[in-house]
């Protein structure tokens, strides 16, 4: 994958740095402004627009991505800090199929409306399930408390994660 950093950030030449990382399984080499956030690089440098920018100060969780196996805030990391990292965005997690069962529960139960929080919500919920999280609703609510949703009131999201927990391979 080649980073399309030609416009507009190439004009932001005051301080930039070369990075190399793997994004959704592909090697990326790019020159990035040192002040650019990781989520801005993913969105505008690589065109991975499934990660969303809701608050830019680490509260809302819309920019959640997976970095070296853990969910992180894409707005609180600099692109420069991703040098050498393994990154997975919603696009990669979707393509891998690992979110299929969870996403189906979100869709079936109206666990999303506008969809802006959903990529971050899915990645966070998947991390919870993969870490052994079960169908207990208050545990699910705690696990999702760093991801804001303004549409659903959370109830249907909790329904979806609960259902996914019951059918998670680990539960079998």
């Amino acid at each position, binding site marked *: 994958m080649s980073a399309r950093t030609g416009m*507009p950030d190439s004009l932001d030449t005051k301080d930039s740095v070369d990075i190399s990382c793997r994004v959704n399984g592909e090697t990326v080499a790019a020159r990035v402004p040192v002040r650019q956030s990781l989520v801005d690089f993913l969105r505008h440098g690589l065109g991975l*627009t499934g990660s969303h920018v*809701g608050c830019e100060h680490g509260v809302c969780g819309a920019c959640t991505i997976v970095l070296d196996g853990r969910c992180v805030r894409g707005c609180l990391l600099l692109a420069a800090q991703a040098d050498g990292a393994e990154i997975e965005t919603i696009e990669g997690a979707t393509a891998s199929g690992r979110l299929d069962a969870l996403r189906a529960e979100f869709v079936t139960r*109206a666990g999303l409306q506008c969809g802006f929080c959903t990529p971050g919500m899915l990645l966070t919920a998947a991390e919870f399930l993969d870490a052994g999280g079960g169908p207990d609703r208050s545990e699910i609510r705690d696990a999702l*408390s760093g991801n*804001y949703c303004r549409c659903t*009131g959370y109830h249907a999201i*909790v329904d979806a994660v609960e259902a996914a927990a019951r059918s998670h391979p680990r539960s079998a």
Partner: protein
Amino acid sequence: MTAVRPPRLIGQPAPRPEAARLASGAGAYVDDVDLPRQLHAAFLRSPHPHAAILGHDATAARALPGVAAVLFWDDLAGVVTPLQTRHAGFPGLVSPPQPPLADRRVAYQGEPVALVLAASRALAEDALEAIAIDYAPLPAAADAATALDPGAPKAHPDLPDNLCWAGEISGGDVDGAFRDAALVVAQTFRFTRHTGVTLEPRGLIAAFDRASGQLDVRISHQQPHQLQVYLADLLGLPMTRVRVIAPDVGGGFGIKMHVYADEVAVCAAARLLGRPVKFIADRLESMAADVHAREHVVDARMALDAAGRITAFDVADRHGLGAYTVFPRSSTMETVSAVRTIGAPYAMAAFRARMQAVFQNKSLIGQYRSVGHPIACTVTEALVDQAARTRGEDPLAFRARNYTPGAALPFTNPAGVRLIDLSHAACHARLEALMDRDAVRRDMADARARGRLPGLGFAAFVELTASGSEAYGAGGVAVAAMDSVTLALEPDGTVKGEASVSEIGQGIAGTLARVVADALALPADQVRIATGDTRSAPHGGGAWSSRGAAIGAEAALGAAARLRAAILAGAAALLQAQPETLDLADGAIVDASGAPRLTLAALAQAALFRGHEFPGGRLPQLAVAHQHGRAQDRAVPTNGIQAALVEIDPGTGLVACRRHWVVEDCGRILNPLLVDAQIRGGVVQGIGAALYEACRYDGEGQLLTGTLADYLLPMAAEMPDIAVAHVETPYSGSVLGAKGAGEAGTCAAAAAVLNAVNDALAPFGTAIAELPVTPVLVLDALARRQAA
């Protein structure tokens, strides 16, 4: 000509068709698209609530790399006019012009002063820091309560005072009712501003093509047609040269239904420069410059007779609406909505509401989910609980006695609200069945055992939905209260359509498709309705006032009936049969025996590719349009009741919501999955208003809540499960019978929570009459008791 068939899809739960795409990260929100030669906009916004601008110097900013332009009002004044709200429904409305960029004076903190256009947002923000503005601060009008006092600072020095508009609604013998009352309860209620906090901030890309004179605006917005009208007017362009496209929208809630000064400035800049301009608000500017909502001080009293029957309400609302009355609908709709449904569930005989809406040097108040109704509901239901408590009576028993009985409908109450098709008693009974009162009692006992103070609160409500053209059109505001749907039969037998309703996550596009599919006997996935593009969708209201099901779906049904008639006429011509002997089933035209005679695909292909086969060459009209608005009923009233179970931690003052119940009646339910989603989402926005959300300003008009660390939103861990049930009383004025469902959750949730808090505090002889209920308010209330 309306085909009424047993519905196969209407009433069945179904996810919205866009959900899987959005949940795959494949949404296309406004910031996900870039255009060639695009510039990025950043606004220099006023740090002062009120100041004169003596001068400015952008020389250094213009010299920075990547900066294409730095614009002030004088630069834009040649291509755009100021926004100025007019609404004849508010006689005497004072409405100063609002330039898209400040003109020698700023009137609220966050008001756009200068616009930088640069190669990236970061470079544009660099340039903001290099602009020098010479401000001379002026005294700021911040406090609505004192805004009309003699000598109070004025929000606009050229106006005689801070009064934007005053009015009164009254009916019946109010003074007589209070004179003869056996009991009067009274309270002063305070409501702090809050806002919608769409997770996707406002944003747009405006592109102007000088050769064709065409302005294309891709914007996260709820009403593309309304915006098209006003952009054309403000920029002096014909509507045929203004195209507004609403792509995937990351939350609206009313926040994205206005014409904002900064968005108009971006369109003007695109026109001036002839290059695409993208503006995406960051969270700080969203908190400062998105419309805020509410902000009221309401003095209210309620009269009862000796039998405990409510006889009258008498209220005075002081509403602080910010620096300008919002364009184009006017902020004053808020104060009318805040008083109009006071007492609406109950059979009162007299009503008086005095309203004063005042200017302040604060951000503008605009229409936000359930406009005004949460204020009316909270005032009413808190007084109802106060009366029941004073009488030593169960709050549900008190309500049951006072509801307007179904047999009394239709009833135009003394506030002038025409009440029809309501079901208070049925909703009340359904709530009692939905709540397991024994389990609730056990939960409350358990809370007490843990040292918590449990409380149970109720709130009945009337929500006016699907506003008619009386609300804005009659006042001279170019807002459509009708909606349009076009449909066309495709060569493969599927149906494509365009609708003027706006898809903002609520699922209305798919809902309309299912209405059409039902009428044409097609599977749901054979009908596709697009929304959001003024070039292709006919004019209509968009998303406001919970109108999609009540008005948009009715337009879809009308269009489907036209297409059905055209299909049958075309088939009859080909088959040499009478149209009345034909019907539709499973994608085909069938005869009276039910035998398929012609598929829809075959008919479409004949019409589109082999028109000569039709007798006389008369093509069937397989592209149709239908427009639906109401001639009767200014609004479609809905009703319901909510209950909240809370626990107060007496040590910290924190209120925890444990359970929440809703029974509501939105008439015929088109898609129960999506209706419940609307109800629950609305409830949580109401809980936010009840406990957390506040746009706080200091006494000088400085915003203190500019981040999501300062402005608290409901999070998953704090929110309860929400049980939802329905009563279906179809709207009598339409074929489908659907009413609005999008705002009912927000309408009464805060009232139920406040009543639950006060139920918890009742043993201490203290109560709260302010939202949000912060821990400090709770601790103060408990301290008042301990001091007493």
